């Protein structure tokens, strides 16, 4: 045979072969290890990049350009009849007041077209702000005061450096003339970035500079509170039954398999369930936090049940045996001894479930919480939207100013999630007991 004919290798030769293969194998080892590290680093890099994009886009949403103007509350415009009746004050043409203030600032502007361009520097909501202050305090009429008025969206973008001045005039949102005015205002200190209270206190709007997230925050709040009130007791009760009372049989196996599968069912399917059952069959109102909460309850229940069961499982049997030995009934054992010990774990699981529910969008789209809603919802059956849905709605808007608002809303959403998850971690760290 071939192999027997070969001359035997000397020890030196064999060693050389082994060393060569060892070099190769160690090299493979280092490469493999580097792949692993690269994968971890890649994952983190994605995370960092994602946050960088969101924060660099969204930081501007919390600041807003305002223009300082000397506003004269002209009685001839606001209340020509001099009645001071609230109805008349509400109906007055405050846009004209703003226009007059702008013209007073730039007296050399003439002609209709130029005036129209000039008025576009200030947001349309400035007139509403004036209306609000006049209705609240009619004695303002006839006086003048220095006021910071909301700048329009293009001016805001310009101030934040998101408009390229080098572009041809037709391709940017502001004309050369408007740029000149803006620069003049800036030079006089009459145009500045201020903290954006509108964004945090107003409802949705079609105009980026007037749009706020408060309506969505309130909608999310109502939805989440009801979700918590429903899913926590039900989830804990189900976990107690399955872990402490149920005998292992077909029925409990079925429930278990069901819970595990529901945890992995796509969330949009829960939305279909909500649409068909709660809205279609029970006739509940569309777009309401009530229905949203019911759907999210079904969605988070599996998470809470699984976490609660794990928490119950972690309580050592000796505790139960001791309680039963002292003559406690089964329910007393659970409610007086097991449940308090398992509570931190259950709460942790619940908070994590709530965090997931807060970020959930798809099922809410299905039940119509995706409408354009300006008003702040006041109850569980009012039409409302939720924070993630607001993100979705704004990301769809063509106006460039909404890119910033969307990122700003995401930052707020992430802030809530961070708070919730940190609470969960702290809870676990503080109350976790090892037996």
């Amino acid at each position, binding site marked *: 045979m071939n192999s027997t004919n070969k001359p035997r290798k000397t020890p030196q030769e064999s060693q050389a072969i082994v060393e060569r293969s060892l070099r190769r194998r*160690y090299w*493979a*080892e280092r490469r*493999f*290890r580097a*792949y*692993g*590290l690269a*994968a*971890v680093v890649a*994952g*983190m890099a*994605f*995370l960092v990049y*994602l946050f960088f*994009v*969101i924060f660099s886009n969204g930081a501007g949403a919390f600041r807003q350009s305002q223009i300082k103007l000397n506003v004269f509350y002209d009685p001839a415009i606001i209340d020509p009849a001099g009645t001071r009746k609230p109805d008349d004050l509400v109906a007055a043409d405050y846009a004209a007041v703003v226009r007059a203030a702008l013209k007073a600032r730039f007296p050399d502007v003439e002609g209709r077209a130029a005036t129209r361009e000039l008025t576009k520097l200030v947001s349309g909501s400035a007139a509403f702000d004036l209306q609000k202050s006049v209705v609240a305090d009619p004695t303002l009429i006839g006086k003048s005061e220095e006021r910071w008025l909301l700048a329009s969206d293009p001016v805001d973008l310009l101030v934040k450096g998101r408009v390229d001045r080098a572009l041809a005039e037709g391709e940017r949102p502001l004309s050369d003339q408007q740029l000149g005015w803006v620069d003049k205002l800036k030079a006089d200190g009459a145009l500045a970035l201020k903290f954006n209270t509108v964004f945090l206190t107003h409802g949705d709007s079609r105009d980026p500079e007037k749009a706020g997230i408060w309506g969505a925050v309130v909608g999310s709040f109502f939805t989440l509170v009801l979700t918590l009130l429903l899913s926590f007791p*039900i989830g804990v*009760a*189900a976990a107690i*039954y399955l872990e402490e*009372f149920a005998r292992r049989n077909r029925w409990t196996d*079925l*429930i278990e*398999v*069901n*819970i*595990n*599968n*529901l945890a*992995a069912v*796509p969330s*949009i*399917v*829960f939305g*279909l*369930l909500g649409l*068909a*059952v709660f809205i*279609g*069959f029970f*006739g509940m109102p569309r777009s309401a936090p009530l229905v949203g909460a019911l759907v999210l309850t079904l969605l988070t*229940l599996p998470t809470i049940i699984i976490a609660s069961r794990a928490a119950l499982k972690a309580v050592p049997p000796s505790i139960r045996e001791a309680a039963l030995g002292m003559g406690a*009934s089964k329910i007393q054992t659970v409610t007086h001894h097991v449940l308090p010990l398992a509570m931190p774990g259950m709460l942790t699981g619940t908070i994590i479930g709530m965090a997931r529910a807060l*970020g*959930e969008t*798809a099922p809410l*789209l299905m039940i*119509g919480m*995706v409408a354009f809603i300006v008003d702040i919802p006041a109850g569980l059956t009012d039409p409302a939207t939720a924070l*993630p*849905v607001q*993100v*979705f709605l704004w*990301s769809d808007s063509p106006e460039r100013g909404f*890119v910033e608002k969307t*990122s700003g809303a*995401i930052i707020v*959403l992430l802030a809530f999630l961070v708070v919730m*998850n940190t609470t969960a971690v702290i809870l676990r760290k503080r109350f976790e007991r090892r037996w």
Partner: protein
Amino acid sequence: MTPAALLLALALLSVGAFWIGKTRSLAIVGGSRGVRNLHSLPTHYGFMTALWCALPALAVIGVWLVFQDAIILRLVTDHLPAGVKVLPANELSLVLNDVRNLVAGNIPAASVSEPVQAAAAEYARLRGISRMALTVLVLVMAVATILVVRSRIKPEVRARNRVEQVVEWLLIACSTIAVFTTIGIVASVAFEAFRFFSMISPLDFLFGTSWSPQMAIRADQVGSSGTFGAVPLFTGTLLISFIAMLIAVPIGLYSAIYLAEYAHPRFRTWAKPLLEVLAGVPTVVYGFFAALTIGPALRGWGESIGLNVASESALAAGLVMGIMIIPFVSSLADDMISAVPQALRDGAYALGATRSETIKQVVLRAALPGIVGGVLLAVSRAIGETMIVVMAAGLAANLTANPLEAVTTVTVQIVTLLVGDQEFDSPKTLAAFALGLVLFLVTLALNVLALHIVRKYREQYE
């Protein structure tokens, strides 16, 4: 009283009932000195009274509220003028919607016709009567049960056993909600899907290659054929999921290996949670990220090397979805790798294998079933993912395997078909439920399979 106020009143009554039951039991045995003559603790008598007060009343409220609206609408319909009553069902429901909206104050009275206004007044009147009746019934019932139970409290009544029996039934009821949810999903989605299949043949749906759900309103309308061949959606979903898995599986698996086998414990303790942050970011954020950053960037790169990349390409959506799924794969794989007994590794080391050889030839092979299960779960997650594809993938139902083109997915179509106003019995709306049924069944099958594999694997090493 509004239902909310009624519930509040009932809650207060129950608290009162607890107190009445407790003091009554004590009074019967002559104060706290006679407590040992009672079968149960005084609080048990309190709970017994409270439960008797609350539970039947709650049941009545529940049943009442479920049927109230339907019955009132029926009565209102009877009062509508004959001309309106003979309208077909869908137009009649529009009229009734007007009635309801008017009562709720969503639309001004001037915007609807005279009979609708009359019907709304009738609706409001009947609802008032119904609420009044419910309030009286519930409060009388609650008070009556409190009095009856109070008179029945005797030292030998086994209050604790009764209360605990009820509590146990409540626990059982809570645990069955999961089952009812599944039944609800299957029943509701399947019901609407069957209505769809009675209009469109299931074979056309499952094997047709043209998807264009817009129904023609006029006969000569272009591009509104109303064909429901879902194959382009299935291929689109699979294409995007495939791209996502191409990203997520290698990165997830390699990071799991690194974290479980190589990383210093200190590195691991902060790297692992940080990776899992990726899973905690809401999907709508990823969608925005994909649409704002990745899509345009890919398009730009494509242009610079002469490729035509759609701005809503399958690649962009798949890439971002892959990033989202990385922690999902890595944490499952990490669990599986950690579950492999140390003895297997020691055996390999003893034979002179390097660490990477041990991992590749022993640990991964031992953990393979578990990892496959985890990957299957990740695939099911990718198929069901909605927001990323809604925001970053297109609407055009292209039948293509080219990742640079725009494709659409099952979930995108469900959202587009159901968001906005729609009537409940057009094939267009019902098609969403048919797609939902397919989605549910496919993900369910994947989950069952994956959970089965994972459980089998876990048992092997326990």
